[in-house]
């Protein structure tokens, strides 16, 4: 994705790809789905050992975050995950680890980070509301002061792997502003309702908060002052999300290219027909656009650049729309076989469409960009 990877990053990429080809190829997803399972915990633990979450965790809490490349490196991993339509709590766990590492007290960091880094603790990030514009703003859960703590009420939707999570990071709206809370999954008043998701490799849930009591030990950072921290988390999450989408698209495009070179119709490879060629040329153009936007977003967020907020929205719109459009047409180019359950491409397209709309649809990011443009 990025054309300026350093040696370590190239190694990380190769290692991740080899691990996934070996332990979590697309055939593994098919088996998980047919078996009615969500994801493979053993694979996840091994992956954690490779340092996937540790990228966000400081050394003293069991991580390797001194590399100062956390987001950019994790984006490399995310892109590889996309290529195999990986099923597992990578994104949510990373963002929660990032949040606790950045805003947590020493006690919170010591309590949660080692488990997250080791793949033993799973986390879910709860912030989005349930509507059509969900994905970039928090506020569907409210926090009201009670004693030295807060009471939380409301619904967070599209929470990834909440069903499996040990830990929830909740962003809630109070009278003074946003606050964030770290809560064990079993906290009284929390109900997790699994959602029916078209992406068969991603567990999503609605999390209902009913009079949930969050003590001071659960508060992450200062009460009512989490707006900036939330935006940083969102940016980091969008970088990973976009990188993943690029991987999904890249891989589907790759095997479609193989297919059109190999499949013959009327005595010629179908890839020699100009109509397909021109469509594929447009697709690679959009894909290059997605790669450029995603790579720039990773760099901008990593560096805390002034255009980071713009960069992630540009990337989210470009990656999301191009993924759906490209893979939809790749499926088309496969003819009828692309519509069968037996072919892999539907897993790619399911994730593409799903990623286009989660974490802010293109429309949501276009609106955000207008706002960032001062309009």
């Amino acid at each position, binding site marked *: 994705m990025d054309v300026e990877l350093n040696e370590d990053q190239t190694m990380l990429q190769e290692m991740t790809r080899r691990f996934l080809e070996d332990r979590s190829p697309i055939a593994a997803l098919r088996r998980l789905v047919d078996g009615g399972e969500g994801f493979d915990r053993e694979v996840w633990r091994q992956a954690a050992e490779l340092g996937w979450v540790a990228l966000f965790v400081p050394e003293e809490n069991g991580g390797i975050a001194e590399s100062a490349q956390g987001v950019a490196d994790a984006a490399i991993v995310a892109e590889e995950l996309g290529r195999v339509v990986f099923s597992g709590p990578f994104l949510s766990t990373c963002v929660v680890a990032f949040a606790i590492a950045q805003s947590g007290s020493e006690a919170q960091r010591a309590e949660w980070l080692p488990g997250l880094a080791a793949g033993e603790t799973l986390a879910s990030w709860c912030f989005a509301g349930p509507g059509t*514009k969900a994905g970039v703003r928090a506020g569907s859960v409210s926090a009201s002061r009670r004693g030295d703590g807060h009471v939380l009420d409301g619904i967070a939707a*599209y929470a990834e792997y909440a069903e499996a999570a040990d830990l929830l990071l909740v962003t809630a709206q109070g009278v003074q502003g946003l606050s964030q809370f770290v809560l064990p999954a079993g906290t009284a008043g929390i109900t997790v309702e699994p959602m029916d998701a078209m*992406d068969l490799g991603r567990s999503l849930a609605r999390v209902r908060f009913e009079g949930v009591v969050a003590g001071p030990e659960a508060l992450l950072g200062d009460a009512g002052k989490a707006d900036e921290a939330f935006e940083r988390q969102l940016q980091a999450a969008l970088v990973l999300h976009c990188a993943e989408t690029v991987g999904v698209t890249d891989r589907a495009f790759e095997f479609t290219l193989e297919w059109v070179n190999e499949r013959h119709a009327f005595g010629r490879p179908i890839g020699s027909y100009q109509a397909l060629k021109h469509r594929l040329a447009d697709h690679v153009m959009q894909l290059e656009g997605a790669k450029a936007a995603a790579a720039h977003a990773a760099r901008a967020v990593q560096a805390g650049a002034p255009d980071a907020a713009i960069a992630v929205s540009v990337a989210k719109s470009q990656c999301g729309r191009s993924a*759906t459009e490209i893979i*939809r047409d790749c499926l*088309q180019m496969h003819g009828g076989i692309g519509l069968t359950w*037996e072919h892999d491409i*539907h897993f790619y*397209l399911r994730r593409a469409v799903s990623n286009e709309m989660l974490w802010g649809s293109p429309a949501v990011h276009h609106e955000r960009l207008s706002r960032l443009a001062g309009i």
Partner: protein
Amino acid sequence: MENTAEAPTGERRTSEHLDTDEQRAFRLKAREYMAANLPPRIPGQPANSFEDLELVALDRQIQKKLYDGGLGGYVGITVPEEYGGLGLDRRFEDIFFEEAEPYRLPWHYGNAVVIVLPCLLAHGTEEQKKKYIPRILSGEHLWAQLLSEPSGGSDLAGVLTRAEKRGDEWVLNGSKVWTSGGHVSDMGLCLARSDPTVRKHAGLTMFLVDMHQPGMSVHPIRLVRGGSDFCQEFLDDVIVPDCDVLGDVNDGWTVARTQLNSERAGMARGWHYGLRRAEASAHIEISRRYARLAEELGVSGDADARQLIGEAIVLDAVYDLTSKRAATGARNGALPPTIGMVTSLLSARTSIDRTALMSALAGPVGVAGSPGGDGPDIGMDRVVTHRIGGGTLEMQLNLVSERHLGLPREPGSDRDVPFNQLRHNATPKLAG
């Protein structure tokens, strides 16, 4: 859009005032008999869905009822009497469909009456017509088309299924795919390669195949979304007697052309006769789905959502008006018959565009929702938006540009080469 029954129009328009005495008598007979014997048309009920075995069984009964009641079965009115039809002119058929509007018709016989029947009439021996046509009209035989193959759906003349002559019968081996209702059909129209040493269009023969024989194994295909009414067949020494060759040996492509043209003509006309309402009188009706969806999604007041819905309304209406105009124009000669290809292309494009609009409207709600809710369906519509029936989009675009617009064909590279010297694709197994 084409595959569910529409509600009968509130105010029915008939051409009753034009009836001759004979026509009037036929109309009254049909009206009375249908009222007594046919089930009502239920809006939203699938027109054909071979997965729904009860519905298939119901259609078998309806077809039989229509035949037994002297109405010629479904579409038997213009078929000559010696083949079980009524031998009447098209005006009587129009009357039939006017009167049938409130009732379900046996739409699962679409393949049989729209495609197989014209092929039998055009290419069948007297013996074949007398044997097979009455069984279609009486409801005894459901037919399937055994045409596409897993090695290549678009290149229909490139079929690999082999037919070898042994004594006075033929032995067929190979695989067919995308067969609607293969698992419930009694007979199949099957194109196979009888001579691989000549150029590809020249070595084909068309067979009438008994689907109920041991060499024929039929497997429903699981599609992305779950089941389907498509099947893949494996032909393992399937036997066809000499008398069931349709048309001449090695002249199967001539029959296939009739078959394809009949299918296209059927699509131009609205595929299943009488499935749509009368053409000229139709007004644009905006689907109530949009208002309901906007309400459910809570976006009724959003300017951008209203744009998407407005656009979807235009898509729907334009598709509807275009296909009605095409049907009228093809019938009165104002438009060439190839206009049906344009309608067919528009149908594909419309569904691609509509699913994109609905997906944009629903955003995340369209990709995940409460179990059993219809949220994720909106997202999934984007996955399955392309169609298998009617050929790939690419073939439709070729057809429209070459046949309808008359643009030059691609320089062909495989038309004049002996078939066994061409490169062929592997034959994947599509059924799980």
